[in-house]
């Protein structure tokens, strides 16, 4: 009996051997950004929230910026300036400036994927302009930059922006015949704005999909459950709210050069219509016209975009990966040679289910 109790006591006391970290004594890094200075020199900025007294309820952000030669050097440099040990567990956003992204972010990805303390759901992004400026900027929202940027990305990926985070990017980064993409964001006065999609080839950024094509890209990548699709104002501006979309990839394997068929089916309703040349909304023919109009718009946008992908040798749609999974003896080098000339047929179908409650 006695011995049992000794064992129990031992267990209790032995737990004290592990070092304890208290939240107050850690500098919790929430946002992290890197700028390109010159070759082999980078500038890193971290954002650490400073929680004020309970009554005041302010959240200030402490930003540390250092120049460093490598990533390892960077964390040492930051540690030198920080009064508390840095903690990466709550990291929510990592940003790279465009120049750095263009020169390759492989090293950064390696560090992120290795660290067990960093979550897989964190957001990555490419910044048009200086990352330091963006992180250090003061914004109207009463929240930290990290939360602000994270909120923007979360919100947009629910709607018009294709889903991407660290995991998605790593998935594409390692996969053969699939390239990753990241949100392309920009600071505008006292706001931050997503202005497009930065496309990568491996770890290097190669081009940008501009704002008007982003939704088309999302339609080609995943099933969209909500999103807004405005139409060019030739026949009066019309807005469509997407309620559902369907996506199907097919490969014609029989020939030497594979042929891809992408079938997109969009369902939605009209929620905005500024009549200019439109006669009347009651005409049943109008809905059909609009459907064709949207269809042509989406198809043109998709064709243009895919042609650009092929020109830039980047494959965010994962055509190579699909081919690899459906064809025996996939030859990566041969595929890369073929890719710019591979025919990709996009077939869009638009179905408008309603025009709202007023005529």
């Amino acid at each position: 009996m006695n011995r049992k109790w000794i064992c129990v006591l031992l267990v209790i006391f032995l737990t004290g051997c592990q070092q304890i970290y208290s939240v107050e004594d850690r500098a919790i890094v929430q946002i992290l950004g890197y700028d390109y200075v010159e070759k082999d020199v980078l500038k890193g900025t971290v954002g650490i929230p400073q929680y004020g007294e309970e009554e005041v309820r302010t959240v200030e952000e402490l930003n540390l910026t250092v120049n460093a030669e490598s990533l390892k050097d960077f964390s040492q440099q930051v540690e030198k300036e920080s009064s508390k040990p840095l903690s990466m567990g709550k990291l929510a956003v990592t940003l790279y400036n465009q120049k750095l992204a263009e020169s390759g972010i492989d090293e950064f990805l390696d560090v992120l994927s290795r660290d067990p303390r960093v979550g897989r759901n964190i957001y990555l992004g490419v910044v048009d302009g200086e990352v330091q400026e963006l992180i250090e900027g003061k914004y109207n929202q009463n929240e930290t930059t990290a939360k602000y940027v994270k909120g923007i990305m979360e919100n947009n990926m629910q709607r018009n922006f294709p889903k991407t985070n660290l995991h998605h990017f790593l998935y594409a980064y390692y996969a053969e015949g699939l390239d990753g993409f990241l949100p392309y964001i920009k600071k505008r006065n006292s706001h931050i704005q997503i202005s497009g999609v930065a496309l990568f080839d491996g770890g290097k950024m190669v081009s940008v999909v501009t704002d008007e094509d982003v939704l088309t890209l999302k339609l080609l990548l995943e099933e969209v459950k909500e999103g807004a699709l405005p139409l060019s104002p030739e026949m009066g501006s019309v807005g469509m709210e997407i309620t559902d979309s369907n996506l199907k990839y097919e490969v014609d394997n029989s020939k030497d050069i594979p042929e891809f068929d992408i079938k997109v089916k969009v369902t939605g309703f009209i929620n905005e219509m500024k009549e200019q040349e439109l006669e009347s909304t009651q005409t049943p023919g109008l809905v059909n016209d609009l459907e064709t109009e949207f269809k042509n718009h989406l198809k043109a946008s998709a064709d243009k975009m895919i042609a650009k992908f092929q020109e830039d040798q980047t494959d965010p749609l994962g055509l190579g990966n699909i081919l690899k999974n459906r064809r025996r003896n996939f030859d990566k080098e041969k595929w890369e040679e073929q890719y710019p000339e591979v025919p990709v047929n996009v077939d869009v179908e638009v179905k408008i289910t309603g025009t709202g409650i007023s005529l």
Partner: protein
Amino acid sequence: MNKISGKQGVQIPEQFLVTPMFVFFIIHSMQVGVGILGFEGYIAEHSGFDSWISIIMAGVFIHLLLWMLYNILRDSGGDIVSIHRDVFGKYIGGFFSLILSIYFLLLALTVLRTFLEVIQVWIFPSIRIEFFTLVFLMLIYYLVIGGFRLVTGFCMISVILTLPLLLLKFFPIDVGSVNYLYPAIEHSLTDLLKSAKATILSFLGIELLFVFYPFIKHPQRSVKWAHFGVFFTVLIYLATALVAFIYYSEEQLEHVTWGTISLWKIVEFPFIERFEYIGIALWVYVIVPNICLAMWGASRIPKRLFNANQKLMIVVYCAILYILTLFLDDREIVEKINTFTSQVGFYVLLYIPLLFVITKVFYKVRNQHES
């Protein structure tokens, strides 16, 4: 009981026996250990996303071996020690039994050391292993001296407690893409077999039946439960692998050391941001019965061989485990141990068909001789 088994005298008093149904839990918890936390990368190494076929192949192989095991044990009516004594004589047979005992110790060591590695990498990088192992082994010792029935009970708790973890597979399925997982069987049979061999480490454990067979109340009635246990393991591995293939890209898998734990990382609840900590903590319930069973098997053999005191043997084996754990202290060695155990386990499994043939011939000849 027939004449032969009466002679061997492996009679266990009824209060130490377990009902046939528990064989399901014993077999299953002996098989599922640390392997499942990171086997996705190993099996995909040779045949990529096609390696789910290898899991089924390995599963069929294990079912076959289980059938042989039951056949051997039914013919002899005893356990491995008496079989070895009958077939190979006192000294050579005893030597073989002793090797099996050491093999079980090796299994325990692999599981314990690998799990400590997981704790070091994922939760406490600066943990003092010497203390942690000590506490852990005290727990193991406490459970094993409680006897086979206690360990069996713990196995059941472990299976039931960790079953809800399977529900978490929902998260990676939600995130992952099925578009790239198309069943194109492009790997050759050799590649698939290589993957199947790599899966074997995760399936090791059925050989423990050699030792605990006399502890089953109506041994032959447990056959279906044992097969059911193996089948359940195969199902779980299959589900785990498929989910990993949905979540990771084929090349990404090569860069992931602990596939299953990394999957837990994306599980997010409002009240907990990092689920892997809970997952790893819960996994102790899988590890403990696993090591307990191996230790019990390891210490049971010397008892049958030399009538040694089993408690003393457990103390000795725990001490050996403790010392070895302290010496094996870096990632590479852990990796090597896993490969080594996998190799040894593979040969132990191959020994089963061999023994099957030998015993078939042996008992046939003996029966003819006697009649």
